[in-house]
């Protein structure tokens, strides 16, 4: 292990996995923006870190103020609950991504319309298929 990797790992550990979080969030934001500008997706989504719901906490959760994975829909005209549920299903049905989020300290998935304020929260631990490994 060289000195650069050692320092990166050390800072990453001290910041509670922030590098990985930031990398994934920026990757997703870039992809959403590209799909919106090319016209392939009609909703512009923005991913960010938000406060989580303490009722959804698990053993790997980070501090509640940074344990929420929030997707904000910027152009939310005529946004309905079924559309939010539909978007959430793409994340909750992907068990490996849910586990990846949980490993990074997230416990709550929040999808929100920016102007309408319509919000739905989901507990990630329900979708990780960790039945045999009990998570409180």
């Amino acid at each position, binding site marked *: 292990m060289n000195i650069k990797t050692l320092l990166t790992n050390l800072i990453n550990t001290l910041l509670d996995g922030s590098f990985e979080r930031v990398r*994934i969030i920026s*990757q*997703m934001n870039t*992809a*959403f923006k590209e*799909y919106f500008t090319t016209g*392939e*997706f009609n909703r512009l*989504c923005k991913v960010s870190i938000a406060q989580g719901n303490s009722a959804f906490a698990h053993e790997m959760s980070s501090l509640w103020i940074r344990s929420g994975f929030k997707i904000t829909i910027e152009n939310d005209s005529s946004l309905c609950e079924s559309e939010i549920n539909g*978007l959430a*299903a*793409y*994340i909750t*049905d*992907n068990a*490996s*991504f849910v586990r*990846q989020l949980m490993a990074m300290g997230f416990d709550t998935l929040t999808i929100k319309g920016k102007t309408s304020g319509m919000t739905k929260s989901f507990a990630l631990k329900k979708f990780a298929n960790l039945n045999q490994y009990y998570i409180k």
Partner: protein
Amino acid sequence: MNPISRFFARMKFRRVIKTDESSNVVDSMVKARKLYKELSIATHPDKHPSKKDVAEKLMQQVTANKHNYSVLISLKNEIEEKLK
């Protein structure tokens, strides 16, 4: 392991760990719905009376993975091979 092969192994490992599910999730949100419709039509058992069992199994797989774009893409290739 000599230094050159170690270097290439390291590079390969870095490439592997950089590919995560986040891009697949965004791709799924954008493209999976259209592909799912296309594949569910292509695998409908009524369209393949001679290979009904294969078509039914493939349709079940397609329905189970309707929110996962990368799996649907691999299923598309499988469908093209098995249901020609």
